[in-house]
């Protein structure tokens, strides 16, 4: 039997004279159409039956199709409604159901098959077109029911699923279209659960769909899962295969489908569809899986995205997962002068990443300046962001500046930038906070206090670091009891597990007010909290990284407290505890093989150094100067930038007479280079100058020390940025 008409014919035939053809005969439809236009379905049917020797159903189906193609969907529907399609399906089934058991000859089976397929496609096409007509009339849920009956019938007729060789092209085409149309109809009708079932039926049964159709269905389903707002639940147990991945929820299922679509594209099985990547980007970034997204991006072959776009997207992915080093490397490439040096978002991101590391800050200053210059026209609104990142980079750069002059220059430039950003970024609370910290570092405590208060007001006290900053500023102003009030208020606003840093602050505040017993009490409470936390969340992981207090710090804090009370025994016990923990944690850390290994080893050394340092304090307190000296030395070896240690060694050295004075002096200068506002360093440097007979220098140092005395916070300001 002939399939579709010759399509080249269609193109060339400008008059668009429709023809119908069957049983080797073909006729023009002008006459039939005229009858239809008069509403004479029966007469139209009769002339078709006559002209083409068709039976009733065939003639009706053909008429319906004719009406449908003429765009008269209402007419088509009337014609289709005149056929009892369900009865026709009923008639199809038994004859085919017998087929597998028949032992007739091969030739005969095939011919029966062919005839039945013809009958089947006739009926199925009629139902399908009925569904399409209903859809076009806006009767979507009725359409869905009709469309569903096409698939139900196919499943009954071909109960083993459709295999490649089993069906002819026409039947396959109808089946494919119905499979694709059904979920869409349910979706349009708002029946999302039925749509989900239809999508799964389409994807999990054998329909012999072509790649493009399957890809469209998979994408449509992923979109429904992602945005439909209806939870699909896991697929039924029947389709689950042992050892295979079964998605449990919408996000998993959608991401799986989108990944499969990406894979198909990469293998060249389907056309590239950028929206697949956009959906995947949304899904993965919303669940913070940007490294997985990065992997997907990396797998796309070159040429699909411009390389700079790809680098920039990758940089966002890595930076979104905190892998800033990788992100910065990509941004350096994309911002190279031969690539796209004027991408303002890339510049800002690069500047922001650099602002978090004092050794990159200078590089960041360059990016920020470029961004500010580019913030014109539609990007003008980003000028404030540029100034803000510039201020942050400059502020960070001061940490590594080699001279006092450079430092103060950078500091005031940082302040100018941040202040300049304020009017451009109204109501940006983060900016107010950063400006406050910059003021504080600059020891402009009044301005810092104003910022801290404003930050707490405008965030409604919702950000923990705001409270800590306010308490630190107050402590720098030596307003310890007020700082304690703030800390207590903050504790009230904080859930138990987040209270660590506040309790540590409180203990130090008590200590500063010489309320030693209270301080010990607070440390005890903190210790209990941290230990409880460790028990409920497993062994300590990299705690220093995420704003949590670690147990060593507490023991060291207690050791410091006891040594200041000259309770050497207790201080030693605390140090011992810290050392025990060290053992434990080193083991714990070594089992954790991951990218943070370097962080661990740094932490190791710091903690060791701190232990030696406190040990030294105890030795010194007991008058064992030689041992103290050795302990301090060890501490410095492990942690070359330990400022308090440098100061105490110098103090010890300066007591040893004139010969040791130059060493003491250089150690103190070193300490001041690291921490220029350390008043103890200034004080001892003054002493060294005095002992060496340089009265004027000594006086300057003492003056610096006395000025600074009033402005030391109990924890350094940059600990909270």
């Amino acid at each position, binding site marked *: 039997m*002939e399939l*579709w*008409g010759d399509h080249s*014919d*269609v193109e060339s035939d400008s008059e668009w*004279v429709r*023809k*119908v*053809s069957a049983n080797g005969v073909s006729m023009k439809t002008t006459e039939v159409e005229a009858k239809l236009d008069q509403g004479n379905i029966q007469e139209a049917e009769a002339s078709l039956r006559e002209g083409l020797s068709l039976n009733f159903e065939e003639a009706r189906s*053909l008429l319906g199709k004719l009406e449908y193609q003429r765009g008269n969907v209402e007419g088509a529907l009337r014609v289709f409604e005149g056929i009892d399609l369900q009865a026709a399906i009923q008639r199809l089934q038994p004859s085919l159901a017998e087929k597998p058991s028949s032992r007739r000859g091969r030739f005969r089976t095939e011919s029966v098959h062919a005839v039945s397929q013809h009958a089947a496609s*006739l009926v199925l096409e009629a139902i*399908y077109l009925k569904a*399409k007509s209903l859809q076009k009339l806006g009767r979507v849920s009725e359409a869905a029911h009709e469309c569903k009956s096409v698939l139900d019938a196919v499943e009954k007729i071909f109960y083993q699923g459709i295999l490649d060789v089993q069906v002819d092209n026409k039947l396959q085409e109808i089946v494919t*279209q119905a499979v*694709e149309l059904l979920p869409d109809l349910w979706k349009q009708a*708002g029946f*999302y*659960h*039925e749509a989900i079932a239809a999508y799964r039926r389409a*994807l999990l049964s054998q329909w012999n769909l072509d790649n493009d*159709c399957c890809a*469209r269905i998979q994408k449509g389903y992923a979109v429904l899962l*992602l*945005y*439909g707002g209806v*939870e699909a639940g896991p697929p039924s147990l029947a*389709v*689950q*295969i042992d*050892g295979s*991945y*079964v*998605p*449990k929820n919408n*996000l998993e299922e959608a991401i799986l489908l989108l*990944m499969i679509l990406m894979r198909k594209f990469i293998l060249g099985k389907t056309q590239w569809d950028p929206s697949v990547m*956009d959906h995947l*980007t*949304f899904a993965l*970034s*919303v*669940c*913070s*899986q940007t490294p997985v997204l990065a992997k997907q991006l990396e797998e796309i072959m070159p040429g699909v995205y411009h390389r700079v776009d790809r680098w920039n*997207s990758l940089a*966002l992915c890595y930076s*979104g997962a905190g892998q800033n080093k990788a992100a910065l490397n990509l941004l350096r490439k994309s911002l190279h002068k031969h690539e796209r040096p004027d991408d303002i*978002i890339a510049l800002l*991101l690069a500047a922001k990443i650099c602002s978090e590391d004092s050794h990159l800050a200078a590089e960041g200053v360059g990016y920020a300046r470029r961004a500010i210059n580019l913030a014109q026209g*539609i990007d003008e*609104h980003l000028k404030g962001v540029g100034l803000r990142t510039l201020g942050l980079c400059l502020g960070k750069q001061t940490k590594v500046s080699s001279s006092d002059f450079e430092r103060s220059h950078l500091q005031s430039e940082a302040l100018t930038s941040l202040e300049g950003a304020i009017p451009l970024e109204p*109501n940006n609370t*983060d900016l107010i906070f950063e400006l406050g910290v910059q003021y504080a570092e600059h020891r402009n405590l009044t301005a810092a206090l104003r910022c801290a208060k404003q930050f707490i007001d*405008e965030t*409604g006290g*919702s*950000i923990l670091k705001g409270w800590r900053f306010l308490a630190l500023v107050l402590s720098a102003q030596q307003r310890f009891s007020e700082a304690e009030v703030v800390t207590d208020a903050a504790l009230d606003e*904080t*859930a138990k*597990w987040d209270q660590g840093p506040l309790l540590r602050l409180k203990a130090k505040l008590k200590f500063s007010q010489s309320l030693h017993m209270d301080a010990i009490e607070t440390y005890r409470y903190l210790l209990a909290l941290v230990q409880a936390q460790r028990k409920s969340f497993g062994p300590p992981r990299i705690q220093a990284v995420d704003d949590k207090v670690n147990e060593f710090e507490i023991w060291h804090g207690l050791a410091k407290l006891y040594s200041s009370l000259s309770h050497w025994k207790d201080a030693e016990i605390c140090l011992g505890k810290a050392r025990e923990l060290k053992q434990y944690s080193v083991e714990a850390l070594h089992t954790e093989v991951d990218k943070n290994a370097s962080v661990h080893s740094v932490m190791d050394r710091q903690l060791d150094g701190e232990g030696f340092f406190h040990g030294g304090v105890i030795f010194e307190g007991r008058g064992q100067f030689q041992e103290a000296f050795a302990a301090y030395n060890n501490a410095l070896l492990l942690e070359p930038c330990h400022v308090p240690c440098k100061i105490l060694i110098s103090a010890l050295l300066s007591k040893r007479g004139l010969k040791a004075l130059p060493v003491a002096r250089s150690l103190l200068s070193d300490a001041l280079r690291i921490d220029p506002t350390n008043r103890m360093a200034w004080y001892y440097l003054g002493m060294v100058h005095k002992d060496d007979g340089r009265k004027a220098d000594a006086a300057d140092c003492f003056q610096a020390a006395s000025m600074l005395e009033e402005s030391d916070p109990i924890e350094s300001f940059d600990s909270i940025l």
Partner: protein
Amino acid sequence: MFDHSEPTTPSSTSTPTSEHAPSISLDSLSKTKSAVESLSSILSSFPSNLSFSISSSNLNPAFSLLHDPQVASQVSSLLREPNSGAGDNNLCRWLYDTFQSGDPNLQLVVLRFLPIIVGIYLSRVALRKPLAGFEAILLALYAHETTSRAGQPITMNVPNLSLPSVYHEAKAPINNSTELNLAVISPSLEPHGTVRSTRRARIVGVALELYHSKIYHMPVGSKIDFCDFCVVWAGQDNNDDDRDLNKESESNGRKEGRIQLPWELLQPVLRILGHCLMGNTKNKELFDAAWAACNSLYARSMHDINPKALLATGSLLKLGKKAMEPSEDLDPTEIRKSNVLVI
């Protein structure tokens, strides 16, 4: 095409058994009746058809309440009054009581107003206004979610194509190193009796997670409210013309509404927004509101230099833009046009 200006009938919802009217229990009916009665005493004019409907053949009165435009507009304007969030506010009490009634259909009515409650609440926190009424409602939602999740985190296994799945085949993994990557979508929940300010974003975020899980039932108006507040929260006008206007209003006082958007708040916001923008692009009004919200949040992400938010909002913008373009694709479900019809 079928236009969803109003949501579909309850027969299409997830739990047909509980939604299908005949199975609504007497208990639920009486709860709804008393909720409607007490609401009618709060609102100035209560739609007569609603109070009537309780006794009449209306089979799901809570559903009518959820979708009644008059009730929605009156409740919304009451919620926007200056002191609406106070502890002694009648409406807040009604919303709280109605949610605590435990009737799922009535809870949907409360959730319908969540965007306005959250929107007004978060924007007012900095203004030191009484908010105990709003907080009681939010805590009730938080507690509900905590109980139904038993405090557990919501996690997912990030798919890995090297393992076969129901939708694709793969060679058996060479070794066991192809473990699934576990992602926490929403961390575990601890009970909260009060809104501690540092937990505020989380409590609101969890309430929004609850809203998102029921968003299919929400009327379009509620979603539009949500999108409008996103623009306020972002506090970002990407438009140059607007900027000049802002400068004027800034001189009178700071522009209200911009809030901190930590991830615990932003994540559920983005998921809801995804639904509003892409869930049904046929609804023009909702699509436009969501489009504006996406633009604002994208601008905000640029100002915060927030990579994850840039990726999420940026991809939504691309998808939204594509949805606005007239589709040139041929409809693959259309039969081929031919002038020779064959059977």
